[in-house]
């Protein structure tokens, strides 16, 4: 068996929802899960025996610790790599050299790049300290927001509504790639099959697409993904880092999860 721990923040949910489908498609894989309280590295303690424990009570029903000493791979998902700060800058200021957005003040594109550099560097250093650069660890950035995110939820999308979003995304992505390349962790960027447009996930893999009938989506339902995403993302992870391919399947893990069908 190949034991894989999926840890991270609320984005762990997509993999938890796909758990049955993953284990059915990858019968040699054994999964375990852990979510950091408050999504914060500092909320946890990683002891010398390899046990990661919550320092504060987790939400009810969530595990309060995970033994990482026995796993073969650790997939750390949902990492923001400091996107929020960059998004806030772009939200509050025009960027000289990019399309004006009617803000009262501007900042330079050089400042935007320096800011990304500063924040991502810090983020990666925190990340490195957190699991002590354990080479079993592969880090995945948080999924891109869904391509059909409505206007009322667009604040959650960061800079993606900006006319020059592609350029801003490239600045951020390149910075993440550069800094992660110096860590012993692997970096798993969002697979092309799960990208609908620059910095956007396909609508059908967002939670908003698989909510029960009659349930109105919230903004978070466009930034958090469903079991289809979890399954597809894990499959890409398994291909790249475990050398495994899924057994054939015909149905959507999110439909299976939603309808309680279990693995097919």
């Amino acid at each position, binding site marked *: 068996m190949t034991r894989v721990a999926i840890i991270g923040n609320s984005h762990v949910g997509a993999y938890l929802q796909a758990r049955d489908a993953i284990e059915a498609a990858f019968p040699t894989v054994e999964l375990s899960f852990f979510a950091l309280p408050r999504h914060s590295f500092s909320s946890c303690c990683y002891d010398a025996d390899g046990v990661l424990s919550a320092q504060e009570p987790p939400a009810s029903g969530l595990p309060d610790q995970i033994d990482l000493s026995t796993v073969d791979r650790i997939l750390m998902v949902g990492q923001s790599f400091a996107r929020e700060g960059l998004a806030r800058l772009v939200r509050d200021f025009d960027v000289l050299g990019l399309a004006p957005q009617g803000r009262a*003040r501007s900042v*330079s594109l050089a400042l935007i790049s320096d800011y990304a550099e500063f924040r991502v560097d810090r983020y990666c250093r925190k990340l490195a300290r957190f699991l002590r650069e354990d080479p079993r660890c592969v880090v995945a950035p948080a999924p891109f927001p869904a391509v059909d995110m409505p206007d009322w939820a667009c604040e959650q999308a960061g800079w993606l509504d900006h006319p020059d979003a592609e350029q801003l995304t490239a600045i951020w992505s390149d910075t993440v790639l550069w800094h992660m390349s110096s860590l012993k962790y692997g970096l798993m960027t969002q697979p092309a099959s799960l990208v609908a447009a620059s910095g956007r996930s396909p609508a059908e893999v967002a939670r908003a697409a698989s909510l029960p009938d009659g349930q109105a989506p919230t903004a978070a339902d466009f930034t958090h993904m469903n079991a289809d995403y979890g399954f597809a993302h894990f499959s890409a992870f398994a291909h790249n880092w475990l050398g495994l391919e899924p057994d054939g399947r015909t149905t959507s893990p999110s439909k299976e999860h939603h309808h309680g069908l279990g693995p097919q």
Partner: protein
Amino acid sequence: MKSPYQNLEERAFWRACVGRDDDNALAQLWSPKLELGRATPLMTAGSCFAQHLHRALVRGGWNVLQGEDMSAHLPNRLCQRYGYNLFSARYGNIYTARQFRQLVEHALADTAPPVLIWEKDGRYFDALRPAVEPEGLGTADEVRQSRAEHMLALRPVLEQAACIVLTLGLTEGWIDRDTGLALPTAPGTIAGSYDPDQVFLHNFTHAEVIADLRATRDLLRAHGLQARFLLTVSPVPLVATASGDHVGPATTYSKSVLRAASGELSMTDGDFDYFPAYEIITSPIMGGPYFDQYGRQATDEGVQLVLRAFGHALGEDASATLEKASTARAATSTDEETICEEILLEAFNK
């Protein structure tokens, strides 16, 4: 026989004061003319030494105006690198009285003030604050837009300020021949290129410094603005002189003129006061001089004495907050090394 020196306070006598840095001695150093309290809206400006005062006042909880605040968006290191939150707006270092007068004229002008743009390696710099964008901007239009936004942000600061804490640094300055604009640094150091047909060196006289400072005050009053001035003189010597003199006498000239002009204004004009930071750092009066091994940068110990003296003269409350601020500064000095365009001159000379 009676002497006019009889019954004077202890602070009047060198022997009683020299070398003391106790609280009592610090409190006696300066008797503020202007009424300052923590709620007084302050505007800070000046040469690189002024950054110390700005930082300590902000950390001490004083009402330091900020027209282009980025503290909620950027870490200190980037604020420093891009000229944010060093002073009350993003005007960069202001070394001469003429530069400050020009800044106020531009901010209060009804028409768009002139913009002087330097180019280097395909990047464009605002010649009146070339260090605030260390990489320059992509086009000349971006420089114009950035400057227009800066002027717009500066005006409310001037309108609200009750006191302008202005640290004068230099008398030597470069003037653009076409526009008459006073530049913070010579072209060819940060950006642009030196062309004697385009710029010339001017070493301001005592009379010119006084005239510029009074003209600035008059301009404020003409716009109905009430700010008064607390002047200080930067103790930091010239890094280089283009006057043809030795840098030592050139420094003495520059600082003497600024000190004398500040003193004269303080003695004769109710809108100006002088705070003796220069004396604390450069003379033995408080146990100094307080310079680093190269005899140029003020030591942390000296800067903290300046802040203590400033606080003590303004009362217990001010003293405590400024001392706290100066301690915090020492703890984060790596992140907040003083930005000084003059250093570039030195690098350029290597």
